[in-house]
């Protein structure tokens, strides 16, 4: 991973807007190691409010900055804060560090290198919405991270830093357990499965209290906005989408990993920063398993909502997977769909029947054993996945399937006419977790 190391938020970045200067990761690049509380405070300075900023002005600063959620949906963070704050009464804050997307590592990485930046942001958010408790939700599979964060929380307790309770939880790890209502349901003693609404989480969530659930990275940005202000935040990114985001790059690049980039950075520039391509590419999967395939002709497109929307894509949670020409996009997609089908909560029609049927059709297409009616049946079934479940899991799977049929349209024709291509018989290129049912939801 490479990045500029000269600009830190409390020195040059404040005066000279270096466009790609790291923010969330600047502490890491300055020291090369994960930050202890003392190092964190030395690097970023004390967390602002409590001293000179009132809770409501945090909302105003976040609104002026234009911060959006970094978990994938991109919802304006100020609106979320305000919705919870305006309910009145004791609220609850939940840090969503579940990161169930198999190709994403950014939340894990951020919590490893800058845990206190995330925690500062969560505590600030808690003060802003009058919460007395912050729940930090990790997947049970990340035991080492759990230990590390326990130590970080102990450090803060010893320093008497926070006016709120911080609680760490290890939840069952499935694709849909990262959905915000899954967290709320689990924290309330139930299974980590999506709940559906109404009531909305901001109205009645954990312990029936107004609840703010946000992605790990969003809280870290919030902590920096409170320190350096909205103008500083807007020095990176585009006017529509200010700021930086963490991306996880994998596939056919020389240095796969997590890096921080400004919104608006062209996709091929991001690939170059991840060491550059190791092979000729045919497509890029943007947004991960619930994301969108873009054929290689679109690699110059900036990573920004307005540029990606015409292509049916979005920045999402910043997952980029580079697929080489030597791979079969249909086979890779079929394996991902099988995983997504197995990982549904099986609560709603699309996850009980629609998604498994789509995965099966897709597997037949990839393997070159399609019946004559397959393509029209597959298109119809894919079209019936979105908007018909309690969560967006089927919608994401539909996006993956539909975009694969577009990006690999030539392969679809060939698979239908002549059977599976040669690449379909080679070992897969994208790591996919086993398509098995979750062992437990609790």
């Amino acid at each position: 991973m490479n990045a500029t190391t000269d600009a830190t938020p409390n020195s040059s970045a404040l005066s000279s807007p270096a466009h790609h200067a790291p923010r969330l990761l600047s502490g890491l690049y300055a020291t090369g190691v994960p930050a202890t509380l003392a190092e964190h405070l030395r690097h970023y300075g004390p967390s602002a409010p409590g001293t000179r900023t009132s809770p409501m002005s945090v909302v105003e600063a976040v609104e002026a900055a234009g911060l959006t959620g970094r978990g994938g949906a991109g919802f304006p963070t100020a609106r979320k804060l305000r919705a919870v704050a305006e309910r009145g009464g004791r609220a609850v804050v939940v840090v969503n560090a579940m990161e169930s997307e198999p190709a994403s590592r950014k939340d894990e990485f951020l919590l490893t290198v800058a845990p206190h930046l995330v925690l500062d942001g969560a505590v600030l958010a808690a003060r802003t919405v009058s919460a007395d408790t912050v729940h930090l939700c990790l997947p049970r599979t990340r035991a080492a991270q759990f230990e590390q964060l326990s130590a970080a929380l102990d450090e803060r307790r010893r320093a008497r830093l926070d006016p709120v309770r911080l609680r760490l939880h290890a939840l069952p790890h499935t694709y849909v357990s990262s959905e915000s209502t899954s967290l709320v349901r689990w924290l309330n003693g139930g299974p980590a499965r999506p709940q559906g609404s109404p009531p909305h989480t901001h109205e009645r969530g954990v312990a029936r209290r107004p609840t703010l659930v946000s992605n790990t990275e969003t809280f870290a940005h919030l902590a920096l906005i409170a320190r350096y202000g909205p103008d500083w935040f807007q020095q990176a990114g585009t006017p529509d989408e200010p700021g930086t985001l963490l991306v996880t790059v994998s596939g056919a690049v020389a240095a796969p990993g997590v890096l921080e980039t400004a919104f608006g950075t062209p996709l091929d520039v991001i690939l170059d920063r991840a060491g550059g391509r190791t092979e000729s590419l045919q497509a890029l999967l943007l947004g991960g398993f619930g994301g969108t395939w873009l054929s290689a002709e679109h690699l110059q497109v900036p990573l920004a909502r307005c540029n990606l929307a015409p292509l049916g894509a979005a920045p999402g949670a910043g997952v980029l997977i580079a697929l080489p020409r030597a791979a079969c996009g249909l086979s890779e997609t079929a394996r991902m769909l099988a995983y997504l089908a197995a990982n549904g909560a099986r609560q709603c029609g699309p996850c009980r029947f629609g998604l498994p049927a789509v995965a099966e059709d897709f597997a037949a297409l990839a393997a070159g054993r399609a019946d004559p009616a397959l393509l029209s049946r597959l298109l119809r079934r894919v079209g019936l996945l979105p908007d018909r479940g309690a969560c967006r899991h089927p919608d994401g799977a539909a996006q993956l399937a539909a975009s694969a049929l577009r990006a690999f349209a030539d392969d679809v024709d060939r698979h239908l006419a002549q059977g599976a291509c040669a690449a379909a018989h080679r070992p897969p290129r994208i790591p996919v977790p086993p398509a098995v049912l979750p062992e437990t939801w609790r």
Partner: protein
Amino acid sequence: MNPANRAKTLRIDRIACTGQGLCGELLPELIDLDEWGYPIVKDRSVPDHLRAHARRAAAACPLLALHLDADRT
């Protein structure tokens, strides 16, 4: 305005629904069924002349998964 006279909107509790398909039979003007019997809502807003049908469909759902919400405006 009296809530009873407000415009009505269909809402399906997707987790409660088990695809019995009665709603599609009682209210085909607004609800189709997929190949497994689960509802496909063609139009969420209920026109006045279908209000009684919609109410009947909601009452007939064995899982009580079909709801008729009064619009907030």
